[in-house]
């Protein structure tokens, strides 16, 4: 194995010897990677002295974090694919090369040829840091032509507008009217066809805000004031909520709680007449959609210019590169005609060069291959790209943008009234904003005292371990045993440094303002004071409440289920290995599959859980549970929206956790195997009943395993994160704002590693205290058969 390793490594070095190797980091799906690699190969053919090493990061959510880690470790790549938000994180910290001089010296690059907004948004404080490669307007409306014909509406041509009320007299020229006319109900009043829907929930909301021309805050560069309770904002929130919860033009956000909405599938099935999304949909729709379909732009609000959201992509050069000239060559190639043509041909990226986007490389034209002539009006993406408008705000403002997003999410799910939620945003947001603006991080971190402190911590730790026992006189034999014990500990003690080093580092960082890349600034106890200042930000308190509620229910249930399963699976029954494997399957499942599976289980309309409780058509009422649940936790007469309802989302998470009980089960099975059969034999000879045997023999001898499950269960439950991050982002109404999710948002969303470290150490202390109590209490109930006196 090591041989393979060395061989690969040396072959890489051999290739690189006489060439310049550029590392290009990107995040793309396998589909686009094929094209990216073809572009690189073509570039290498044209530049024989340059080798491009493509390093794909196959997870969009972790992409920026990996780039940050690389930068922090001085391993930044030469170039990277950067989006509008990623680039800002790096441009602000001065780790990207400003491109203006390079552009000026390159006659083959004319910024005027690019969509003006792409160049505009890739500037930070003046200089251009990213050469645009693609624009992806997300204000595209895909529509089902058959459903338009059935409703007696003309096909939209992009010159339409929207208003708060359907204007029937304008027919298909009024988007709101189309939404209304395209929504159909059955005789029982159930909506069987929806007018529209957006590919993901916040998109619909964000587009309405943009298009209406509202400012939710005073300015993007340096926001200081919020306009959440502005009557126009309240009006818009109310309208957005009504489109779902009152008029039912848009599916009742059953998938709002998940980031992977299925509006796409509903559109394909013809249950949704219009879908707002981006041009990438074409690739799938061409294959899936039986009905005739086409695309147009999101309507402008009456009397306003067209504005729509979008995603920009480009190529940036890291300042740490040793081959600036070569990197610029590649940057020009990738973000120039060569790269764009390949990506456009594959139908993946709309070129950032406008003339290229208008040509039949991207837009359907006479020379396009037949499969790319659908949809016929894809050329309208040019107009959509021109209307792309972004609100790129500073990092200190991320927290407030999240507040708005949370409010939008709640309003769309029907939690709270728009006015109440907005007042909440205004009040909390203003406090947080004022604090963020006041935050003073100008003092340099005292480096040498910090190093000294780190040494002191280690020293104190060592003393704490040894001093109390120094006076104990050991016999010669005991001393020998003690010494030999340390031989057994060597592997762990060797690795301890690698664990404790980062831990101590994060402890020191918790007294600073740190953005991962730049040198930390000293803030003393500021982060800890801020964390407990609930008047300004109650997120920490909420997250502690949520996390403890989850832990209090899930730990005992989890242990009870794992133990019962283990007892069952420890019986002499046919096919034991197979049964055990079956119960362990959920714990073996790949992470990519898990969240999809849960979405399918909890979906209120088509989900398995509601299928069991309410029946496939909603007519059943399992043991009266359906009515009971709906009356207590949801809306009477409607199935429970598990992940979209603040009352049921935590139970749903507990259920998800219980499905992984198989891991605990095999731990208990091992524990049961550790019980010597002689005890059971003795009990049987004494004529003990099953229960008696369990109570007096099995249970006491299992206490070491139960104790283990308790300790690790607490640690695991208090650090629960993944599913909340992937599926609910903390919502609805912060009902799944787990401690770790809040911490992650602070660390990697707002890039406040200092504050996040303080949160981490607060959690550490909480867990330590609970564990210490458990350890102390364990002496009373844990029975160790082989304990050394």
């Amino acid at each position: 194995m090591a041989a393979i390793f060395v061989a690969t490594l040396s072959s890489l070095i051999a290739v690189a010897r006489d060439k310049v190797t550029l590392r290009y980091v990107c995040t793309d799906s396998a589909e686009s990677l094929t094209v990216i690699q073809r572009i690189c190969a073509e570039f290498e053919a044209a530049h024989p002295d340059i080798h491009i090493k493509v390093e794909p990061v196959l997870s969009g959510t972790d992409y920026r974090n990996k780039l940050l880690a690389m930068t922090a470790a001085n391993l930044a790549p030469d170039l990277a694919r950067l989006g509008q938000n990623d680039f800002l994180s790096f441009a602000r910290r001065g780790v990207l090369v400003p491109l203006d001089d390079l552009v000026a010296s390159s006659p083959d690059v004319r910024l005027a040829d690019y969509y003006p907004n792409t160049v505009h948004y890739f500037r930070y404080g003046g200089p251009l840091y990213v050469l645009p490669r693609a624009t992806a307007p997300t204000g595209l409306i895909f529509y089902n032509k058959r459903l338009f014909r059935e409703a007696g509406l003309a096909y939209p041509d992009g010159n339409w507008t929207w208003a708060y009320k359907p204007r029937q007299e304008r027919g298909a020229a009024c988007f709101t009217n189309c939404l209304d006319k395209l929504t159909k109900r059955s005789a029982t009043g159930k909506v069987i066809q929806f007018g529209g829907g957006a590919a993901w929930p916040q998109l619909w909301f964000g587009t309405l805000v943009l298009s209406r021309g509202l400012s939710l805050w005073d300015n993007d560069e340096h926001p200081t004031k919020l306009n959440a309770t502005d009557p126009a904002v309240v009006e818009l929130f109310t309208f957005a909520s009504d489109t779902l919860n009152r008029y039912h033009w848009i599916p009742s956000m059953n998938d709002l709680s998940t980031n992977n909405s299925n509006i796409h599938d509903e559109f394909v099935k013809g249950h949704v007449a219009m879908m707002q999304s981006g041009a990438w949909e074409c690739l799938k729709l061409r294959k899936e959609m039986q009905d005739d379909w086409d695309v147009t732009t999101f309507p402008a609000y009456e009397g306003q210019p067209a504005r729509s959201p979008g995603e920009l992509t480009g190529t940036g050069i890291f300042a740490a590169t040793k081959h600036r000239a070569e990197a610029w060559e590649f940057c020009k190639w990738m973000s120039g005609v060569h790269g764009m043509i390949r990506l456009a041909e594959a139908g993946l990226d709309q070129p950032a060069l406008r003339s290229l986007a208008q040509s039949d490389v991207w837009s359907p034209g006479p020379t396009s291959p037949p499969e790319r002539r659908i949809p016929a009006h894809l050329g309208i993406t040019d107009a959509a790209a021109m209307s792309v408008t972004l609100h790129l705000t500073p990092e200190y403002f991320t927290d407030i943008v999240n507040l708005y997003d949370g409010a939008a999410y709640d309003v769309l799910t029907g939690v709270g009234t728009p006015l109440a939620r907005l007042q909440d945003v205004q009040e909390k947001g203003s406090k947080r904003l004022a604090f963020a603006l006041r935050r003073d991080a100008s003092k340099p971190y005292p480096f040498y005292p910090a190093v000294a402190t780190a040494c002191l911590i280690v020293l104190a730790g060592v003393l704490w371990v040894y001093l109390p026992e120094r006076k104990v006189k050991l016999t010669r034999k005991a001393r020998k045993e003690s010494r030999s014990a340390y031989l057994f500990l060597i592997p762990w003690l060797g690795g301890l440094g690698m664990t404790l080093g980062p831990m101590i580092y994060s402890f020191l960082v918790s007294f600073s303002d740190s953005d991962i890349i730049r040198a930390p600034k000293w803030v003393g106890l500021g982060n800890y004071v801020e964390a407990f200042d609930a008047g300004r930000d109650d997120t920490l308190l909420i997250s502690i409440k949520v996390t403890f509620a989850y832990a209090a229910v899930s730990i005992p249930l989890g242990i009870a289920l794992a133990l019962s399963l283990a007892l069952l699976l420890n019986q002499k029954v046919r096919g034991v290995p197979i049964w055990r494997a079956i119960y362990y399957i959920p714990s073996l499942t790949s992470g990519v599959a898990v969240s999809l599976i849960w979405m399918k289980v909890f979906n209120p309309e088509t989900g398995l859980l509601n299928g069991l409780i309410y029946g496939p058509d909603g007519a059943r009422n399992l043991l009266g549970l359906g009515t009971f649940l709906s009356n207590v936790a949801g809306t009477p007469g409607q199935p429970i929206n598990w992940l979209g309802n603040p009352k049921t989302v935590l139970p749903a998470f507990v259920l998800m956790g219980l499905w992984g009980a198989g891991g605990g089960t095999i731990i208990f099975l091992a524990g049961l195997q550790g019980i010597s059969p002689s005890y059971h034999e003795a009990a049987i000879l004494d004529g003990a009943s099953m229960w008696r045997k369990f109570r007096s023999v099995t249970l006491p001898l299992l206490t070491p395993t139960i104790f283990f499950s308790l300790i690790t269960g607490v640690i695991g439950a208090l650090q629960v994160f993944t599913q909340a991050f992937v599926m609910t982002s903390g919502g609805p109404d912060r009902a799944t704002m787990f401690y770790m999710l809040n911490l992650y948002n602070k660390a990697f969303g707002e890039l406040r590693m200092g504050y996040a470290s303080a949160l981490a150490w607060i959690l550490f202390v909480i867990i330590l205290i609970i564990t210490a109590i458990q350890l102390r209490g364990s002496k009373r109930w844990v029975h160790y058969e082989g304990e050394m006196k």
Partner: protein
Amino acid sequence: MNQGESRFSQQAVRAKSLVEVNQVLLLIVLAAGAVLFMVPLYLMVAISFKTETEYAATSPWIWPAHPTIQNYVTVLTDPHVNFARAAVNTFIIAVIPTIGTVLTSAMVAFAFARLQFRGRDRLFVVLLSTMMLPAAVTLIPSYVLNAKLGWIDTFYPWIVGAFLGGGAFNIFLVRQFMLGVSTEMDEAARLDGASNATIFWRLMLPNCGPVLATISVFSFIGGFRDFMGPLMMLNSPEKQPLELALRGLQGAHSTQYNLLMAGAVLTTFPLIIMFLLCQRYFVRGISLTGGK
């Protein structure tokens, strides 16, 4: 006498039928639970046999009308997934750490469970405390540390890391098990002049079969399913393990779930089979049961 005999056999028959009734009841309970625990597998398999069109157009719970193996062919032949290469990588980061974890965590656990040494109980608290700090805040410093060691884009973090005790969770689990094993045997052996190493190797390890099997399953699956580790530590596409390579099938905006599920099935079944094969090691160690 005759009467007594028949009563005895009647009792035996009754006891036997009671056992059978229990067996049937047990099977029913197990089967009912199994249905629930098989849901993920069913969904994965069902979707993996659907075409993109059928997946979009039908309920996910319906078995495909025309099952196709095309998704499997696509996943297995996708040049970017590079299944064979990724499978080799996966085995590197699953098998080597498993060996290291079983060996070294048993050693460390043995010291904590069976030996007296200065500061043992406080060191044990240190051991537990390494599990208590959220990994999110040590992610970057750990990365920098690995970079300083030159371990980025290599398998060393897994290879070396595994021989450093195998993590607090495993050490703790094995320690608990060892504390449950009676001390009579080691005391006897010690009187005979056996060293700690002998007691560990000859007496303790053979008695710890079930728990060692458990931690090997955990660390094998942990390595097999590790996503964040490879994502951060590895850069080169040719070093990607399956769990990472298959993420490439997930697009930023549109994901072909039928392909993704085919990939998930392809990586889940080997684990199930491995788990089935491992089962015989879960049974209590051979003879040296102590206690008696």
